[in-house]
């Protein structure tokens, strides 16, 4: 007897297409009943407690917001916490400022300013000052000690020498591991022998870990830090340095963290007037304008710092709350810091673009197919977050394809995406793929000495006479890779001639450091697509391609495409149900191309030309 398909049962239960068969067949009806039970669970889970409309809305339904919104509430909350702290705290822990008997005793005016803020009558000022001083880590220690402020304010941020040694090992040592079906303790023991690190399991993690669970783990030439991140990602665990050991935690018990030495933010430019203008937008009735102002202040980063501190004294609760939120973000490097290093994914991208493979997989186990590609290409492929990868099978054939194209087409039916992490290709389900995250808006934290040196160089480049500009260019060029994100961020923050000079220098350096632009943002990173454009990219087609060029292949999707630069080659591959976006990625990236929309039309061009067009 033929039973109803799952879709037919779904249609029956949800009233799309009632089915006589389902109603009359005991087996199908049982499945239908389980769906009905699920529906009731979902309904219950989504139920919200009834709420009444705010009086303000009833009074003025055309008003576009309540006056105290997220920021205002946050500010009120923080103010209350601050007030409670101020009332309950022994006033002696913030003593009156001692007379300064040794003028110029501290070399850092920023530290002195923050210590003064600790004595501010405003709880918000004090709260942000504590947060900022904590973020400076060791760099703030001298100022805090001299200030006489109770050290208990600063929690346990202090870096112990033993933890710093662990940090250095994690960041500098590289390792290879090739272990199949082994226990976690075997991997840790091997790592311990190779690196000298001591591993300790937190009791909660030990309890949760299945002692019989076997792991297959292969990495090549990776820093220990990245190796551990990959390893623990599989086990839903994190790690921390504590008392000279690496402590493995259940992920719900906190994020991974390694101690940070003395550091300071790299302040780029000062744009107080522009920041004041944006802060005034928080009085607007338009939620879009307030959101744009928040984004604008975050884009300015530390260039808005002075105006933000002043806004903590605003009489408007929304302005005060938003200023507090942005300052908290600025001084929380875990959230707001960007690495002052260019992404180091060029070598893996180069390998995947230039190396060619010929593959023919028919219902091949996924892991076997990936092993085969790993052997053919030498690429570090790592599967993460894919449920039951052992049971998945793939079918795809291609002749003389770049490895990247083969991988993307192979993984498409499984909706698994490739993301690049230094020298690794991370294969994870699309919804969880880290590549989907937008490029992070944020600031740079580095050693205080380097921060001051680079701040000076950026000022000279933006405002200095030609000789100073030349010296600044040489200083920044000396940073190599690291100059690129710094100059990119400076061009976002500065305006006028300063912005142009940063942009020009960046372009010049990029042509030598990363001539193929492999680590540059793609069009997908830079442009925001409309819902309709997203829909167009999700059209699918079967691609049985035998010696066709890019333009002929893309004709199958039936939308207008303007190809301004096409790879001088034809393709041979067979793959089913390939989304247009996937086909584009597979067939453009390895050839230095990228794509963007102009209305409903797709434009394919050299990646640098597409980037320049979007940025313009």
């Amino acid at each position, binding site marked *: 007897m033929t039973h109803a398909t799952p879709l037919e049962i779904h249609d029956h239960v949800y009233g799309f297409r009632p089915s006589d068969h389902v109603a009359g067949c005991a087996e199908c009806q049982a*499945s239908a009943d389980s769906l009905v039970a699920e529906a009731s669970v*979902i309904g219950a889970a*989504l139920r919200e407690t009834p709420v009444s409309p705010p009086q303000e809305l009833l009074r003025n339904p055309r008003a576009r917001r309540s006056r105290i*919104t997220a920021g205002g509430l946050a500010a009120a909350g923080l103010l209350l916490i601050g007030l409670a702290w101020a009332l309950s705290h022994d006033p002696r822990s913030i003593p009156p400022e001692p007379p300064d008997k040794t003028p110029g005793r501290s070399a850092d005016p920023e530290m002195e300013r923050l210590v003064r803020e600790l004595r501010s009558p405003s709880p918000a000022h004090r709260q942000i000052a504590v947060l900022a001083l904590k973020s400076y880590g060791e760099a703030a220690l001298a100022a805090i000690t001299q200030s006489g402020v109770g050290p208990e304010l600063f929690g346990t941020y202090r870096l112990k020498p033993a933890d710093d040694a662990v940090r250095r090992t994690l960041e500098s040592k590289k390792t290879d591991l090739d272990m199949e079906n082994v226990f976690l303790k075997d991997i840790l023991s091997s790592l311990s022998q190779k690196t000298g690190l001591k591993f300790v399991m937190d009791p909660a993690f030990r309890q949760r870990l299945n002692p019989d669970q076997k792991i297959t783990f292969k990495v090549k030439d990776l820093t220990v830090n990245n190796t551990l991140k990959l390893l623990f990602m599989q086990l839903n665990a994190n790690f921390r340095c504590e008392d000279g050991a690496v402590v493995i935690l259940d992920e719900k018990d906190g994020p991974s963290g390694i101690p940070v030495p003395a550091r300071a933010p790299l302040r780029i430019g000062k744009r107080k007037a522009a920041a004041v203008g944006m802060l005034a937008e928080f009085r607007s009735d338009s939620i879009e304008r307030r959101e744009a102002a928040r984004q604008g202040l975050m884009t300015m980063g530390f260039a808005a710092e002075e105006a933000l501190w002043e806004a903590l004294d605003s009489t408007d609760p929304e302005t005060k709350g938003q200023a507090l939120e942005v300052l908290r973000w600025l001084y929380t490097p875990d959230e707001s810091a960007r690495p002052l290093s260019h992404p180091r994914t060029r070598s893996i991208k180069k390998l995947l673009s230039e190396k060619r493979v010929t593959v023919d997989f028919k219902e091949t186990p996924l892991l076997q197919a990936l092993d085969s590609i790993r052997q053919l290409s030498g690429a570090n492929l790592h599967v993460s977050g894919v449920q039951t990868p052992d049971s998945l099978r793939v079918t795809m054939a291609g002749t003389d394809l770049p490895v990247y194209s083969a991988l993307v087409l192979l993984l498409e039916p499984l909706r698994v995406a490739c993301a690049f992490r230094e020298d690794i290709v991370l294969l994870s389900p699309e919804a969880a793929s880290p590549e989907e995250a937008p490029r992070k808006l944020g600031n740079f934290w580095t050693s205080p000495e380097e921060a001051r040196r680079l701040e000076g160089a950026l000022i000279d480049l933006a405002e200095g006479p030609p000789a100073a500009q030349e010296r600044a260019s040489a200083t920044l060029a000396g940073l190599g890779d690291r100059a690129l994100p710094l100059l990119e961020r400076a061009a976002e923050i500065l305006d006028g001639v300063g912005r142009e000079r940063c942009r020009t220098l960046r372009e010049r350096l990029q042509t030598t450091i990363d001539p193929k632009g492999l680590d540059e943002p793609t069009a997908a990173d830079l442009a*925001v697509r409309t819902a309709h454009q997203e829909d167009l990219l999700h059209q699918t087609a079967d691609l049985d391609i035998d010696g066709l060029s890019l333009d002929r292949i893309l004709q199958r999707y039936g939308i207008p495409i303007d190809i301004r630069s096409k790879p001088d080659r034809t393709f041979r591959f067979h793959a089913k149900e390939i989304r247009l976006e996937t086909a584009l990625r597979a067939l453009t990236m390895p050839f230095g191309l990228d794509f963007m929309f102009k209305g409903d039309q797709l434009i394919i061009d050299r990646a640098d030309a597409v980037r320049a067009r979007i940025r313009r």
Partner: protein
Amino acid sequence: MNRMLEESDLELLQSRNWGSLIGRHYGAVYALARKLLRSEADARDAAQETFARALAKLHSYDARRPLRPWLLSITAHFIRDLLRKRRELPLAPQADLEIADVALPSEPLLRQEDGKLLVAALDRLPFDWKLVVVLHFQQELAPADIAEALGVTTNAVRIRLYRALIALRKDLS
């Protein structure tokens, strides 16, 4: 009952009795926003913005249609734009017409005690799928009303719902 309510909505609209209209629909609009946005404050903003926009666009409202789906469609569009601007919009769904036949579980995989897990799994769904699930299960809108509110076909609603449920089961299994 439904029809009477809709007529009453119309009467309230004609008499410009905004307070009663807001009182009647605020809870539903807020509940939708709360499930689509992470923060309560954002949900309140979105609810307020919905009514401000609805009053500004009353000329485009077809008075023969029920009011609530129209209000909810304003909320959904506003939130989609907001998330897109913040670049927090989860992946768009795969093509709506493409369906994988996945075996149904022999017994319910989603259980009462999984409520919190279920809401967390729902948050991981692509926005358009999540929206259909919330409109159907929380707002109890009929597929045709969801289709109209979202400007898509009933078949697209059917497939989004089917895919969303498969994804939820897979996530929670």
